[in-house]
């Protein structure tokens, strides 16, 4: 630990952490667009400095003991040394930051009025803050002739790359400011590595290889760190509104466990505020006819998954260790990069698809409605769920099991579009038909929750009793990799909980070498699980993730029903429709198959 001076105050600094990290930790306000709080937990800042000091906004003045004059440099690659003196705010710095911000804006599209992320954009909010009212680096309309303007436009547009081929992520290079956060997240946290800087100078761009359409795991972390609208989720708001306006369609909405703890942030509430009841009322005002709880299908997932796990251990019909299948990005990751492990993934569908299937089969039969006339919408914290809903396995001849999936951000946007005053909404409840979940299902929102819920139910299935201590604390927490051993009767279950695809890749590499020290592996593709998902409100930082996780677990402490198998609705559904976990009918409606991924665009030369 060193002592350095910032703005004439003394601070303790870690020599391995940059000055920007220190400034941020002490909540001293410094703008930055290329660095991100998410990096600190997950990746070593490499000396080559990829994605570092690109935006040139985090400028500070600094000098050593021996120096008299202050030097100006970026704080993100400035490391503390003894006696360092830093000035973080002053007039000259503000002027320089403003110039750099204007330069970023000059390269930016400047189409704010009809941009998808208007009023929700990091670059725009910085522009407000630094009071950018004129663009010195962009010629004004009266300064250029019509021909020159056309040429400028041609120059700009000819370099534009728009990618809307996939169902999850939409990219537009025109709005990109080349901060390369997406590259950093994709390379270092997720290790999927689908972006890289390409071309030089004015043509430089962050793109995929040979400008092919994006084909990755669609975890959406790039869209959650992008400071502009260059990478956004593919919006389904229009689909939702069309269905609401269609009198023949019954709009049924399901909401994921982690949406209720983060939606408040879209309406400037504190992170970790539980807004379940207001969210339901808001959805009703948006035009949803029925609102169901994904916690219920999470409970179903637990029932099926626990049954499958016990079957795998006892009957040895499928290989161990078993991987969870709730995260579509993780499933896709295995299909793309490790197809040899496909048989290890649990055949259970994700809660979203289970609920979709139940709505269009069990519930449609119950209310005697044609599945075609039901428009099933899921509100998810995830961008990849859009891809999952569009997967071939879930397309029926004349309907889709989940018609569209909205992210938390989209729901917030939709409510703002409808001019709903969120904090003044009345309380409302889920519709009773499929609207009751246990806290075991609610824990799906956080990394480790699936394991905990599955352990509780597996314990019951094996011993016939409920575990004495319901909270399996050892699988909780937000560290990247957690190991634990749980003794159930005479069976010792070794579980591993992982979040972030980078950690998952490390484990699969070990497994490839034959080092296997676990029976059950839970993977969530996004850091922190669904609470840090790609579709969650921006910003998502380690602190905010912690607050959301706390809210999720606080639900577990307060709810009466804490075990999936004790959910009366689950019992009813099995009695009326599915007979028992793992039955033929359950197989048909709640399970799925996986196939090695076939790259559509990459195979073409």
């Amino acid at each position, binding site marked *: 630990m060193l002592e350095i001076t910032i703005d004439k105050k003394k601070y303790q600094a870690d020599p391995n952490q940059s000055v920007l990290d220190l400034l941020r930790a002490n909540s001293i306000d410094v703008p930055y667009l290329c660095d991100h709080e998410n990096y600190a937990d997950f990746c070593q800042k490499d000396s080559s400095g990829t994605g570092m000091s690109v935006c040139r906004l985090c400028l500070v003045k600094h000098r050593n003991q021996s120096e008299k004059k202050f030097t100006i440099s970026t704080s993100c690659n400035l490391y503390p040394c003894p006696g360092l003196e830093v000035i973080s705010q002053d007039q000259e710095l503000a002027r320089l930051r403003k110039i750099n911000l204007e330069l970023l804006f000059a390269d930016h599209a400047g189409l704010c009025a009809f941009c998808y992320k208007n009023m929700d954009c990091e670059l725009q909010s910085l522009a407000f803050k630094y009071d950018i009212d004129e663009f010195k680096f962009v010629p004004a309309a009266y300064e250029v002739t019509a021909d020159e303007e056309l040429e400028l436009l041609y120059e700009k547009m000819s370099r534009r790359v728009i990618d809307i081929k996939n169902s999850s992520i939409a990219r537009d290079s025109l709005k990109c400011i080349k901060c390369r956060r997406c590259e950093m997240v994709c390379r270092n946290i997720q290790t999927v590595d689908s972006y*890289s800087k390409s071309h030089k100078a004015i043509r430089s761009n962050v*793109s995929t290889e040979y400008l092919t359409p994006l084909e990755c795991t669609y975890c959406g972390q790039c869209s959650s760190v992008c400071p502009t609208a260059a990478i956004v989720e593919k919006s389904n708001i229009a689909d939702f509104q069309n269905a609401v306006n269609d009198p023949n369609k019954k709009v049924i909405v399901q909401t994921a466990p982690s949406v209720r703890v983060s939606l408040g942030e879209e309406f400037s509430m504190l992170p970790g505020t539980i807004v379940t009841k207001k969210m339901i009322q808001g959805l009703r005002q948006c035009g949803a006819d029925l609102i169901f709880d994904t916690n219920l299908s999470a409970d179903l997932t637990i029932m099926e998954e626990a049954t499958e796990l016990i079957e795998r251990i006892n009957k040895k019909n499928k290989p161990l260790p078993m991987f969870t299948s709730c995260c579509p990005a993780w499933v896709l990751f295995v299909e793309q990069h490790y197809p040899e492990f496909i048989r290890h993934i649990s055949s259970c569908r994700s809660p979203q698809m289970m609920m979709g299937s139940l709505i269009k089969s069990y519930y449609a039969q119950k209310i005697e409605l044609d599945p075609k006339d039901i428009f099933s919408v899921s509100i998810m914290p995830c961008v990849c769920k859009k891809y999952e809903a569009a997967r071939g396995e879930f397309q029926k001849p004349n309907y889709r099991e989940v018609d569209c999936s909205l992210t938390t951000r989209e729901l917030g946007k939709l409510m703002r579009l409808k001019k709903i005053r969120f904090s003044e909404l009345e309380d409302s409840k889920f519709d009773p038909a499929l609207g009751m979940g246990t806290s075991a299902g609610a824990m799906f929102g956080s990394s480790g929750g699936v394991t905990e819920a599955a352990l509780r139910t597996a314990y019951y299935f094996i011993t016939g009793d409920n575990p004495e201590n319901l909270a399996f604390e050892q699988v909780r927490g937000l560290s990247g990799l957690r190991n634990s051993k749980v003794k159930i009767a005479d069976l010792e279950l070794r579980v591993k909980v992982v979040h972030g695809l980078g950690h998952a890749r490390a484990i699969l590499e070990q497994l490839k070498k034959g080092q296997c020290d676990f029976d059950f592996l839970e993977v969530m593709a996004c850091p922190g699980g669904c609470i840090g998902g790609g579709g969650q409100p921006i910003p998502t930082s380690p602190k905010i993730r912690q607050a959301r996780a706390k809210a999720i677990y606080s639900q577990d402490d307060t709810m009466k029903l804490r075990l999936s198998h004790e959910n009366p609705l689950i019992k009813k559904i099995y009695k009326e429709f599915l007979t028992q976990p793992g039955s033929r009918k359950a197989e048909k409606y709640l399970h799925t198959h996986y196939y090695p991924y076939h790259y559509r665009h990459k195979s073409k*030369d």
Partner: protein
Amino acid sequence: MTIQKILLGFEPRPENLLSALHAINQQFGYISKANCYHVAEYFEMAPPKIYGIITGSEVLRDKPAADLEIQVCDSSFCKSKGSDQIVKEVENLLSIKANYPTSKFNLKTISCLGKCQEGPIMVVNGVIYEKVNPAMVDDILKNYL
């Protein structure tokens, strides 16, 4: 020589990547998408990163060469001698735009070739023309069309 044979000449270490890419570029004239995947697999690197290296280089190409490759130096000396006029002249004659390659023509502005004394410099399909003036452009291009 196939791509595999070229790659086997290099050890799969990051420092050999650039020489391997140059060898492939020399053999095929450019680095195709399929070859990029081969390289990525051999060097255990991500394809986008390799594409970034290819497009960051003046010599490596990611597209096949055009029928007519024209390069005009636009470094300060040649520019002061009027290389802008030459670029405009070529653009007008072939009705193309500099730095926007078509399958037939590729007019590119390049940096200094070290022949400033003989500037402005124009390179057509690898042949260097010195002390070019706009009036000469028509005559030079006639040899190739």
